[in-house]
């Protein structure tokens, strides 16, 4: 197991290096931040001074070398816009993103798992059909449209929730539902199909033949086994939420990491884009590793195969 983990950790470092390199090149291709930091009528000299100050006058390979060296020393640099440490900006925004991701994930599981289970158990019923419609809608509605509709109905017409911004508990409900609806639909489908497979298996039939109570069959023998792929999926989705919530964060004016990266792209704030992508990639890779470990813990066959 330890050998496996060390191997994965090395793979992660390599992956991060690839990510760093790609992001470094792409950000440099996207335009010069000096043009946005200065007024349009700034002189050549002003530009030269700022370019020098930001270290952008050095050859690209030199800039790359400095950048990688600094990262290994834990220095992500300063924002070109605010000149404050990038880590300060990331930490400022990360809580909002994690908060939104957790609540969205919680809502997804809360909606998706029971509905998927019910749908599988009562296959062909009206509620099963309704659940499938719910799932199709969830996976086909764009987040920006759903978000705006939710704002219109629940904030503007009913006045139940704020229309945007991050405030009290009530401010997270609409963005979390917008973010979580797509995944709740996916979890519903996944739970349903896994449950159908499990319920048709020999050990479930055997449990029923033993005369076990149906609830015990469903929850202990059915759901417990059906949840394995769902848990894996949910963890990966949570990691995706952290970086992929840009649309939801924009529609709801939610001050999260995704929006910070998007804004930094438009202002060519290279250090923030680079550090933000790096953090998200690291989270993704760690999430992947966590799922792998979790999987082998939950499924003895995998554990034994790796051993």
């Amino acid at each position: 197991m330890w050998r496996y983990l060390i191997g994965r950790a090395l793979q992660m470092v390599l992956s991060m290096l690839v990510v760093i390199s790609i992001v470094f090149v792409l950000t440099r291709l996207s335009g010069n931040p000096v043009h946005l930091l200065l007024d349009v009528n700034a002189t050549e000299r002003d530009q030269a001074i700022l370019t020098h100050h930001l270290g952008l006058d050095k050859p690209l390979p030199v800039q790359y070398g400095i950048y990688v060296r600094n990262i290994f020393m834990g220095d992500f640099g300063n924002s070109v816009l605010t000149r404050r440490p990038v880590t300060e900006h990331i930490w400022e925004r990360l809580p909002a993103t994690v908060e939104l991701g957790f609540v969205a994930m919680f809502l997804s599981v809360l909606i998706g798992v029971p509905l998927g289970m019910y749908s599988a158990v009562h296959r062909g019923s009206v509620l099963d059909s309704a659940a499938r419609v719910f799932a199709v809608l969830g996976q086909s509605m764009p987040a920006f449209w759903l978000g705006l509709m939710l704002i219109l109905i629940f904030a503007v017409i009913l006045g139940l929730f704020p229309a945007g911004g991050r405030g009290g508990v009530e401010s997270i409900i609409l963005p979390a539902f917008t973010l979580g609806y797509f995944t709740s639909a996916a979890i519903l489908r996944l739970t349903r199909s896994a449950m159908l497979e499990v319920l048709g298996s020999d050990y479930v039939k055997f449990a029923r033949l033993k005369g076990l109570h149906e609830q015990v069959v469903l929850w202990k023998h059915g759901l417990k086994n059906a949840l394995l792929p769902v848990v894996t999926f949910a963890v990966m989705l949570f990691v995706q939420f952290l970086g992929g919530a840009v649309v939801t964060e924009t529609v709801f004016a939610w001050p999260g990491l995704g929006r910070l990266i998007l804004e930094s792209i438009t202002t060519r704030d290279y250090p923030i884009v680079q550090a933000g992508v790096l953090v998200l990639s690291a989270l993704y890779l760690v999430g992947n590793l966590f799922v792998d470990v979790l999987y082998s813990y939950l499924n003895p066959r995998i554990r034994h195969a790796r051993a």
Partner: protein
Amino acid sequence: MRRSLETIVLIATVFLCVAAPAPALAAPEGTLTVAVATFGNERWLPHLYVGAEDVVLKPLWENLLSRDGKGNPIPLLAERWQVLDGGRTWRFHLRKAVRFHNGAELTAEDVKFTFTAIAKEGSANSLAPEFRLVKSMEVEGPYAIAIRFEKPFVTLGNRVTQGLFGSVAYIQSKKYIETTGEDGAERHPVGTGPWKFVEHVRGDRIVYEAVEGHWRAVPHFKRLVFLKVPEPATRMAMLRAGSADVIESGGEYVDELKKVGMRTLTMPNTVAIWVILGGQWPTRPSYDPKVPWALPDAERARKVRLALNLAVDKKALFQQVLGGVGAPVGTVNYYPTDPWISDALLKPIPYDPVRAKTLLAEAGYPSGFEVTMNLTAWPGRGFLPDVGEAVATYWEKIGLKVKRRPVDRAVFAADFRARSYAGVALAYAGPIIGPEPWELFYRISYSKAAVHLLTEHPKLDAFIERLGAEPNPTERARILRDEMGPWLYDYMPAVAIGATHSIAGVGPKVGDWPLIPGHMGVHNWEYVMRAR
């Protein structure tokens, strides 16, 4: 001459006493929440912010002067001022007992420190090129400063005024910045304005609190919160849901605001729109003599430019693209309300595609020509790509082959400086940064300017230099009306679209709101009344 200037100052002083909104009597109460599209660069020091952040910076700070309801300069931090030696020397006498939010008193040293910071090398401030014209600054006591220029600078008053967008020469505390350090001052800025800094979360919110007992105006609201909400539909929903009390808006939302019973706050004629025809820089190495509108044959080139103007139905464009907000004008950067506009300039160049085709044929392009239309958005002017798209469609109707090129401003900005976009057209909206049109031309259409956004022409250079040295406002108005306006109309350096307004949506919590005419962007936060 000197007497007339002094008379203006005296009248202005009297006007301020009579016309300035009275301070609030009741204690500040409640929160005014404002949703804006952008916070700009989100910097707080005079050499680090550009000027486009005007809306969110203005509550905290004050300029030396302001403008009254008729656009005349009036005292603010300076209680009086003198323009001497034909505009080569400006002497400001500061108001006494004005205090920064940290308790320190404002002095002439602070003014000198601020203006020096704006002018220093590498400064991002949009006023830097103009403040670098300062020859010397002499502190003549704690409350007096003389600013001297090599050549006359007759409109310095418009650079140091609270009453115009982008006049960001806000006076900052020398002592505070020197003792706290730039980093400390960036994290917690102090000013003399009616609102003091509370919190800034980058990309999310800026929070101010009313300064009770402020020397000029105690705000009616206790807190002023700016939220950055880039999505216009969300801003609209926030206003309707009561999550925001004021929103930045565009013409396209005016009808919707009316339909849902929200008020609109209009700052009329604050943005001039035109389509830049790139390549009119004949003396530069990047000049391309094959660009149809910049041909060495001036007459043929003018016919092309006229044809491109005649091809566009400006009235329809205003209705369909700009929500009916504003009006077409016959030339570039002249507003319908300007005292120097003539009847001829008020009329837009007519929509006449048949004549446009004829002119193109006469200029040697019977089958049209190929042109690239850049679709580039600018901060706070998100409508520009739509204007470009509409103009491109009109041009196609007269036979031009238009290639649309969506391009980010960060990518295209280098071309403005390098004059390397010959043959490319793009819609542009010039903000009103000075009441007189040449003040903007000085920055963007002067052969000595860093960027090019209209044309380079010796005649226009001569107008700019002449107007910049003319201390008599009446004579400047005459030159603008009788000479520069007709020349621009005849030369037609761009496709003149017209002037549009700045719009804000206002919720039910907001009462009366006095505004300064000609000021683009929402302002005067301290005078916003609570609704009864």
